[in-house]
């Protein structure tokens, strides 16, 4: 099945995840059915332990479900090898982490360039794309700085640039504003939303910040490993 040409980007059906905690089975996800269309700007929300991070791990292919089927851009993730999954994540998913997680020994430019390097993009093309995205995200002049020399907000912008630069189908962000102050967090989210609107990129992020939730177009609430509510704003 090639769902790549359809509007459906993520299809999760009957997803369950049981962890083994020193011999004690822990049900992190108890059955989630969810479809996310291309171009959506979706927030996965819920209290701690509701299964947000586990669900994001599963839809990104970082973790495997104990039960159920997951398809991303038409590909069944559970059937891929470690190498195929690596390549799939590299080409189709951009990640934004809570703690930015830039490579500390690489400059801003090199951090952004890294994924394109993995993709085998030529040096000239890499440089042009890096310059373009730095300009788009208001990071001109920071290309040669190390992450440690940037503020939290600037680091997260670089993380967004890294996630977007290779033109992935989906950007996954786990609590992207958790380490930022309220103002910077909202600015970052506005920027992500603008990118979503302008470029049609699909954003799925987890958060428990009310101000952030307000800006999401679709709000999927998880509770005890299940979808408690799924609202789409007009």
């Amino acid at each position, binding site marked *: 099945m090639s769902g790549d040409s359809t509007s459906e980007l993520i299809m999760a059906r009957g997803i369950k995840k049981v962890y083994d905690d020193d011999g004690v089975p822990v049900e992190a996800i108890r059955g989630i059915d969810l479809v996310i269309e291309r171009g959506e700007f979706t927030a996965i929300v819920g209290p701690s332990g509701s299964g947000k*991070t586990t669900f*994001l*791990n599963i839809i*990104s292919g*970082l*973790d495997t479900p104990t039960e159920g089927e997951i398809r991303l851009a038409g590909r069944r993730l559970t059937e891929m090898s*470690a*190498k195929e999954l*690596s*390549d*799939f*994540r*590299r*080409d189709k*998913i951009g*990640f934004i*982490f*809570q*703690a930015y*997680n830039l*490579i*500390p*020994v*690489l400059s801003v430019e*090199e951090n952004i*360039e*890294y*994924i394109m*390097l*993995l993709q085998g993009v030529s040096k000239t093309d890499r440089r042009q794309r890096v310059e373009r995205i730095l300009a788009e995200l208001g990071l001109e002049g920071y290309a040669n700085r190390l992450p440690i020399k940037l503020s939290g907000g600037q680091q997260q912008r670089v993380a967004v640039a*890294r996630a977007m630069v290779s033109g992935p189908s989906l950007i*996954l962000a*786990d*609590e992207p504003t958790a380490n930022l102050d309220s103002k910077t967090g909202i600015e970052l989210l506005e920027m992500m939303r603008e990118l979503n609107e302008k470029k049609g990129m699909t954003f799925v992020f987890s958060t428990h910040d009310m101000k952030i939730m307000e800006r999401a177009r679709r709000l999927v609430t998880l509770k005890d490993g299940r979808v408690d509510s799924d609202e789409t704003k007009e």
Partner: protein
Amino acid sequence: MFLYLKLAIRNLLRNKRRTFIAGSAIGIGLAALICTDALILGMEENMIASATESFLGEGQIHRRGFRESYEVDKTIVDPQGILERLRNDKLVDRAAPRVITYAMINSPANLAAVSMIGIDPEAERYLSQVDEALVEGEYFAGDDPHDIVIGQKLADILEVHLGSRVVMTAAQARSGDLSQEMYRISGIFHFNIKEMDRATVFVRLSQARKMLGLGDDIHEIALTLHDREPGLNSDDPFWGRYSDDENEAISWSGLLPELKTALELSQFSTFIIGLILFGVVALGIINTLFMSMHERQFEFGVLRAIGTRPFIMARLILFEAGALAALSIIMGNITGLIVTYITSKTGIDYTGIEFSGVTFRELLYPILEVKQFIVYPLAVFIFTILIGLYPAFSAARLSPVKAMRRSL
């Protein structure tokens, strides 16, 4: 590729102190290997020189059976012909004829059993170090046929000094009759070789021949060569050219098999020392890489998450191992060069110490060779990469989720 290399070098520099300590440990291991090799080479040279240059020569020619019995009758067949051939042989540097027999030496105070060796003083001057070993008197100056040069220890035993008279008694060839001659001590030597200093005397070749009734015959031709190889190998064709049914030509390694074995043992020792040092180096590398990996577990998880293939993860670790090896090699080569260079100039005093029948007579000078700075560093580099495979595979098999427990 360049970015991966940059990443590896910068990662190593993240914890400069640990990298320096690990690099030093590996570098010191390499330096120790270079120094050990240089020392062993110097020791081998010294042992060979002590054994061959003192008196033995790099080879000898005898009548077959002479070495086993030292019978006076077993003289070399056609000695003049052989000496002529040796003189015309391009491989041969020097050759000296000798007469050798067991004899009794008497002084007014004491007597001792000795080896009496008749030598051609001029020929011997360029082949052995009898003249250089003299501590008193002169080396067959003038033409007095009754000059005798004896060892210092023997002089003590006989309670004699320069100018003292001694009587030599030896059995003559063919008849077996005892022959006695009186000699005057013209020189006393100290080889620092026990057997030589207490039980060897030198007289003129002509006088020894006369005393033993040998005519123009001799027992031994000692020789030195322009090339070291035939001396190291008793099967070298050179020795075959001078061996037949009557005579035998033997290299120093054949004359002193225990020295040959000792040299082989020293090479084996270098190998064992190398193994031990490489073992230490291996632990250093594994420890450094795993410590570094442990600290960056989360980062590795991120790299895997954003699409770094397992193989590339392994390659990143191998690049770090390679960068660490390169740093260690620079440190090790510099340290090894400095230490070996200094000791190769000052020398190490092992004089008087006996090893495998050879007494070190001169300072031991470690020998620097280019291969020590190419072969061993290359071995360290390859070894480091091989050792790095273990942490590299661990990094490749890393589960991104487990590595990043606190986030995606």
